[in-house]
């Protein structure tokens, strides 16, 4: 008899648990987000003094997120950041400038910590585009970095069921070149 009671109680508890999740107003959905803002490069070059490196630029980010449940969401992120620009005076006759851009392709794992406040981590790859001007032709070179990592803190405030605005601070580490950037972006998101 006791066993039957325990089984019934267990089943009821399981049902209530399931209902408590089903009954939540948040249902699985997708979202698209676009961000733009200020980015800063942490200059760490051995060959060029930090004062000769341009470090502040505009960066953009794009996210496609799958938000299947209450706290965790998964997604893909890309964007475009200029990492640095270096002006080099090589000789009296020659000057050269090199510019590095980066397009990340990341898998984002995001967690809601408290209302509207999220933390995310994102490993992935990065395409680095280098452009050199000076001494002969302009040269563009592409390389891939496979060991990259992003950490991001976001504040996302829902304006309505569909529209979200907010801001985010992210730190990005690029393994291949040992570069680090941070960015502060304003974000606009659309829930699908």
């Amino acid at each position, binding site marked *: 008899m006791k066993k039957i009671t325990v089984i019934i109680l267990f089943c009821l508890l399981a049902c209530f648990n399931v209902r408590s999740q089903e009954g939540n107003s948040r249902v699985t959905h997708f979202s698209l987000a676009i961000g733009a803002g200020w980015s800063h490069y942490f200059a760490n*070059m051995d*060959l060029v003094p930090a004062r000769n490196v341009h470090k502040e630029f505009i960066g953009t980010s794009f996210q496609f997120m799958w938000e299947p449940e209450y706290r965790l969401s998964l997604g893909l992120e890309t964007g475009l950041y200029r990492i*640095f620009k270096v002006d080099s005076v090589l000789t009296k006759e020659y000057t050269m400038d*090199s510019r590095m851009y980066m397009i990340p392709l990341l898998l984002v794992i995001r967690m809601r910590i408290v209302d509207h406040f999220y933390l995310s981590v994102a490993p992935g790859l990065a395409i680095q585009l280098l452009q050199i001007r000076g001494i002969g032709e302009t040269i563009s070179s592409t390389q891939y970095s496979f*060991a990259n*990592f992003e950490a991001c803190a976001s504040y996302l405030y829902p304006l309505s069921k569909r529209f979200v605005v907010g801001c985010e601070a992210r730190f990005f*580490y690029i393994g291949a070149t*040992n570069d680090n950037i941070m960015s502060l972006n304003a974000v606009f998101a659309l829930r699908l």
Partner: protein
Amino acid sequence: MKNWLLTIFCMALLMAGCNKSKDVPVPSEGPNSFLTQTYPLPDNSRKIMDGIYKVTAGNELFGDQVVLKWSRKKLTMMCSDGHYSVLDVGQLDSVIVIQGYWRYCYNDNTGLLNAYIARDEGGSEIVNGVTTPMIILRGAYGKTGNELDKALELVYQRPISPALLSKKFSILAHRSGGRTSDHLPVSENSIAMINFTEGLGSTGIEVDVQLTRDGIPVLFHDGDINIRLTQKGPLSGPIHDFTYMQLYYLVSLIHGEHIPRLNDALMFVVDSTLITDVYLDMKENVNSMSTVIPIQKEMLQRAKDKGRDLHIYVGLPSQDAINDFMNQPDYLITPSLCELTVDDVVRTNSMVWAPRWTEGTQNDLVAQIHTQGRIAWTWTLDNVEWIKEYINDGNFNGILTNYPFVVGYYHYIREK
């Protein structure tokens, strides 16, 4: 709490994982070294010091027996297990003064080593160029920093076998003399490394050749300009994307050297070293032979004009490279080294057959190569036991290694 600590530790590990490796400082007596008050030893005196020595104090680090061998400007102490010393030598009033450092090749252990040969323990004879069976080196070494707290004593046992020295055996050092990853004081594939490597006991070098965007052959191993081999700068990515001028001005190797042009590196070999063999490891499989072979010919002629016994071989690591090589008009008389089969060696008329060491000693094929008047090298052999086996049981005419002092030890202790 433990999970948080673990997370922070993992993130720190991730962030630090791809950072440059540390430098290993070379222990030194500094500018006030007593050696600055001595006079250099003449060439005939140096040869007297070459030989096999019994270690009567200092065995715990250097083993029971070492080889001392002079190179162009340094005295090298070669040990059986991967320890070695690079030493400067001078003489004052018939006393031989020896100062330098020891290193272990398989980790970063290093320390100072100072010694002397007293006037009545071989010093007078060495200075006067008279062969003597009685040479005793007395001194000290330290295991940390610039300490000198352990006794060292080496007693001369015998010379290196004249029969052995009469036959050419090439000790080829990898990447122009040594790898950056072994924390040497100079960068791989640099002119500074070519200048340094004889002090490690090498008699030849392998260099990695790639073409820049404007078709200039340079020495560089990796396909990319990266922070493993270069200082962090504004340029990174595939080396063939950049012109030589861009590489010259915007890239420095890990210890600050420029990426050298092949032409400059070979000119340094000819003009400033006693290196006898250069193996051009062609990283470009095609379209580089027509650029590299004229430089090879020019430098061989320069060596001949200077009376140097220098061999420069173009490497043929693949069928594509062989096809490119055989498209050159004079390929049959161009000194080359083939890494593929014996048939390919015959087809390309390569002077050297160089199979990878993992294929074994292959004594029958090596004998076949010898009967054709060619020579055989193997690459890249770094393990002490394998080096010992290949020297004692194999018949190769040379070994390419990252640790020339280990190959040197097992080669020079042979009787014939």
